[in-house]
């Protein structure tokens, strides 16, 4: 605990770095994965191959993936982002596809029957209704990104992983804790926040309060 109490500024600034890396990776992953997922619901024959590739990427160990990316992207922030984005694609694409495809077909039919164009159907119906499933994917990759970003400090990405690796090499338990503790808190906290966001987004799904369920008069 010593290190954490004696160097709060360093821990704080590394925490901020860590948040930045993870948040940037999650946002980029969503920006890439969601559109791919949407395209896959229209071009269903591509689902097998795309999800297959994303699945294979997901199984590569983190350090091995970093090692493979270094020749192309060098060290530091860039390969870290690429690795985190590649890892995230399976969860985001798969959840986007299933979020959209599990919508009750009678809802889609009613919306089409009322005269919605393909784009209106997508933005007014399919995305809002698929969002809870996509959000579940975002929660998964956020926790994952916070974890993998720790290992990425090995290739110079910075963040709280720096403290852990320094601690390991110098047998300094205080430093290890000063790195590990904020990471755990970060993961837990961001998951809680995302759960709240998810609840807000699917307000319509909640059973509300049992007392307010109005009956036919």
């Amino acid at each position, binding site marked *: 605990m010593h290190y954490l109490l004696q160097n709060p500024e360093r821990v704080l600034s590394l925490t901020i770095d860590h948040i930045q890396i993870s948040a940037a990776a999650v946002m980029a992953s969503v920006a890439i994965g969601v559109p791919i997922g949407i395209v896959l619901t229209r071009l269903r024959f591509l689902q097998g191959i795309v999800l297959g590739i994303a699945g294979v990427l997901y199984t590569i160990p983190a350090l091995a993936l970093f090692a493979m990316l270094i020749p192309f992207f060098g060290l530091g922030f860039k390969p870290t982002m690429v690795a985190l984005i590649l890892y995230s694609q399976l969860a985001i694409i798969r959840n986007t596809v299933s979020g959209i495809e599990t919508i009750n077909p*009678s809802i889609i039919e009613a919306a089409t029957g009322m005269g919605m164009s393909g784009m209106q159907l997508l933005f007014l119906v399919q995305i809002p209704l698929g969002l809870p499933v996509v959000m579940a994917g975002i929660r998964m990759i956020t926790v994952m990104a916070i974890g993998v970003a720790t290992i990425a400090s090995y290739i110079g990405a910075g963040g709280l992983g720096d403290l852990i690796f320094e601690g390991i090499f110098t047998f300094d338990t205080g430093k290890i804790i000063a790195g590990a503790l904020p990471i755990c808190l970060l993961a837990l906290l961001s998951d809680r926040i995302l759960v709240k966001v998810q609840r807000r987004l699917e307000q319509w799904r909640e059973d509300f309060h049992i007392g307010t369920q109005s009956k036919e008069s």
Partner: protein
Amino acid sequence: MIKLENVTKRFANGFTAVDDVTLEIQEGEFVVLIGPSGCGKTTTMKMINRLIDPTAGRILIEGTDISKLDPIQLRRRIGYVIQEVGLLPHMTVAENIALVPRLQKWPRAKQMQRVEELLNMVGLDPETSLQKYPRQLSGGQRQRVGVARALAVDPPIMLMDEPFGALDPITREQMQDEFIKLQQRVQKTIVFVTHDMDEALKFADRIAILDRGRIVQCDTPRAILHNPANNFVRDFVGTDHTLKQLSLIKVKDAMIENISTVRLEDSIHNVRQLFATGYRSIVVVDEQGMVRGYINREDAEKASASQRVSEVMVTPISTIAHDKSLKEALSKMIRNDAGYLAVVNEQSKLVGIITSSCLHKVVGEPYLDSGIAV
């Protein structure tokens, strides 16, 4: 208004859902498509708003071949209500109803005004329901919202696919009655799909009965009950078709109008003369024409000639309103063990009587015509 010309739909798997169907629907007409599941009734309906395109034949709306129209524009001019209602669960009642106006880019204020108007029309309180989500509504309320949504841009045509199918029997009947009243106000051209014959008889100007993709018979409810085209129709209509027929006819259309009555203060002497012409029972009215009771021949014969009718008559008498159906009349006759019912109008004045022979006359005819003994 809507014209289907030799329309056929064959699906990719080779199944012919609709086979050479020709049907013309007039403006303001309520046509019910009915048949067992898989008969092609829903497919036929979905071809009208191009959710399904026909394999052969063409469909005209107001003379225009709809395959030449933009399906999106076409659908916005056709109200659409389906069984599970298809309300969008993530939108409030107001957002659901305003959906088509919103797609049509109506100004916001006009959208809201229309939403309130429609909620009142379908019998929902705007104040309490506007901001609710579909999940917070009962089945009947959801159905009302579905109907309101279909009426939003006042489309001339409505397509309805078993809209009341998922409701419990009591709510269902209530919704049906309300819908009849609503239709009398809005006068839409309606294509309605159901598998429930009672529902069809209740609504339809014409019923088209489908079997294996073909229209077996398309006619008015009465004609279908009277002259089923073949055994399929006869079976489909059911063995209780006589009773169904009774539910289609109003008491006032079958009653005996010119009947003899006696007044409360008439003397038995006068009444006996009437009985001499063959009556067994006569209705007693007061000076306002209100029904007061009836008098039997035996009682009149037993009484002394100087007595008044009011002293001998039997009360109460079974009555029925003239706008009720013959089915209700029959049920009342059986329940009250009455040989006839006095028919009264809105002011409770006597307008006629209905006897079991009136019922026989109405529903017995086709059997006599076809030579089958009753």
